[in-house]
């Protein structure tokens, strides 16, 4: 395999990893701050993709779908926190697992009722539709590069908010020691609600940006959910930086696994997870027992 196609695979892996990071960072934040394990997280990735299909089919604008999808997902997140999730704080993980499983059944059936069972495709914005020619036979789609750039920008924004702003300070304090932060007067009822909604919105955002390259289909949430769990386990629960490392590791493993070990590619990421578990049971950047 020559250098150019190797670079293309690497780029694919990085792009996949960056999308995974968007989903997993939401998951890890929600667990770190709220202490709630949300199996329905992947369903919002699917929701984002379906909203993109739906809005862009009606309005013809991908950008409107981007803005509208994120806003709708955020609003749904606020609503769900108010109705269900806040009743789970302090309950055991089993209750959280089962409630979010019930939520998956509800969301998936609503998807079935609203959008049907068909596979849909979404057009990328016109000016991102071309490809860059690399060699005689190889070219790279501009849209995939745009995803990389966009996800990097979002990741940078997440790190900026968490490391440099007052809101980020509250979030870090909450992840570090919830009881102490609450005793200092931080209104966690409010923080919880917005963190949950932001996590949901990040998952939806990932679904939105991949809609033009992955097509929109029932069950697209499942693999993303499992992989984002693997990423969170790899990186350490509650650690956004860990999620970034884990996501890139999984993205690149998956991409190269498909090329070099096609027969076992579907389990290559789990073998990586098993190896990391042997090495560090609490994840690469995880410190505390959960």
């Amino acid at each position, binding site marked *: 395999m020559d250098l150019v196609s190797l670079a293309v695979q690497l780029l694919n892996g990085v792009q996949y990893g960056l999308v995974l990071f968007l989903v997993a960072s939401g998951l890890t934040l929600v*667990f770190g701050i709220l202490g709630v*394990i949300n*199996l329905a997280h992947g369903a919002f990735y699917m929701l984002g993709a379906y909203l993109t299909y739906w809005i862009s089919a009606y309005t013809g604008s991908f950008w409107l779908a981007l803005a509208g999808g994120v806003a709708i997902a955020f609003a749904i997140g606020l609503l769900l926190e108010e109705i*269900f999730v806040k*009743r789970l704080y302090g*309950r055991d*993980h*089993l*209750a959280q*697992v*089962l*409630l979010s*499983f*019930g*939520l*998956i*059944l*509800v969301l*998936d*059936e*609503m998807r*079935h*009722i609203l959008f049907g069972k068909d596979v849909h495709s979404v057009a990328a914005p016109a000016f991102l539709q071309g490809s860059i020619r690399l060699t005689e036979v190889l070219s790279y789609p501009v849209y995939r590069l745009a995803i990389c750039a966009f996800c990097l920008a979002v990741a940078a924004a997440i790190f900026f908010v968490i490391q440099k702003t007052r809101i980020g300070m509250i979030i870090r304090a909450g992840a570090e020691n919830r009881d102490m932060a609450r005793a200092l007067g931080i209104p966690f009822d409010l923080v919880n609600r917005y963190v949950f909604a932001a996590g949901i919105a990040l998952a939806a955002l990932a679904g939105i940006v991949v809609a033009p390259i992955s097509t929109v289909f029932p069950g697209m949430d*499942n693999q993303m959910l*499992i992989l984002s*769990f*693997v990423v*969170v*386990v790899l990186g350490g*629960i509650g650690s956004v930086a860990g999620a970034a490392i884990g996501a890139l590791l999984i993205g690149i493993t998956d991409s190269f696994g498909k090329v070099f070990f096609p*027969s076992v*590619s*579907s*389990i290559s990421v*789990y073998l990586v*997870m*098993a190896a990391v*578990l*042997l090495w560090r*049971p*609490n*994840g690469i950047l995880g410190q505390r*027992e*959960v």
Partner: protein
Amino acid sequence: MRGAPITGRLAAAALLAAAIALPFLVPAYYVQFATKVLIMGLLAMALNLVVGFGGLVSLCHAAFFGLAGYVLALAAPQYEAGSLWLTLPLAVAAAALAALAIGALSLRTRGVYFIMVTLAFGEMLFFLFHDTKIAGGSDGTFVYFKPEAMIGGLRLLDLEKPATFYWVVLAATLAGIALLAAIVRSPFGHALAAARVNERRARSLGFPIYRIRLTAFVVSGALAGVAGYFAAAQYGYVAPQMLGWHVSATVLVMVVLGGMRTVTGPLVGAALLMGLEEVLRAATEHWKLVEGIIIMIIVLTLSNGIRQLFEMAFGTATRLARRRPAEALPAREAGHA
């Protein structure tokens, strides 16, 4: 059960007699439904050994269940019945081996990590059967003949008959109950419960926590394999969905519904949930929507399983009050540990 009142024992005996007589009482369709309930109930009881008694929320038991089903599909010859004596131990051994490997890795983690890791390893087995050509890939494959039980050329049981198959599954379920009850009451079972209630204290008392939990996990996985073996024979069909985590989560719902601190509670939970599914499926095309809502309501209102309803209705609050403080106290200590 030593202290069980005489009425309780009579009720159990009557229930058992009714279960044995069932094929004479109802049409074949309900016999098959009862078989499915027993199979899922066995799976739920197996899962409950680690979830209810061990305090470990596993989301990969469907993988052991499905793996055993696949072993039957692959080990049995295609155009004749496989031998029960050969395929059943093989299927259970495969499930136990998978449980040993997954458990050995997963049990290095705690709490929510354990949930996520078991989920991921379970899905790994799902994708192994889904993405490769093994046994029909994502389409699955048929098990054309139910296994047969032969002794010296004599056919002992004709499993193709729904009633006979039902009795065999009933016997397997009863054996499962006996095994689980013996485990729970044994010193091993007490050590497993001690590790759940207060891991640090159990460890400082010298219990080998990791080994105890791994043993329970393997036993539970093997029993899940028994259930999966009979499920594949019953449906005559195996597909990757059998290993998917949605099955694991559904079985968890059965466990919680039936009550986690009893051996047979999950069997009751299986009967309730599958009965509910049967009714909903007949009533509406979008039965999963209703089922999801009902699951959410159950989780939010009945933290003690369905028995809580009876306790609310018949006022056994005093019994609860006597039991609760004893259970709550160590739990609080565990929270500080």
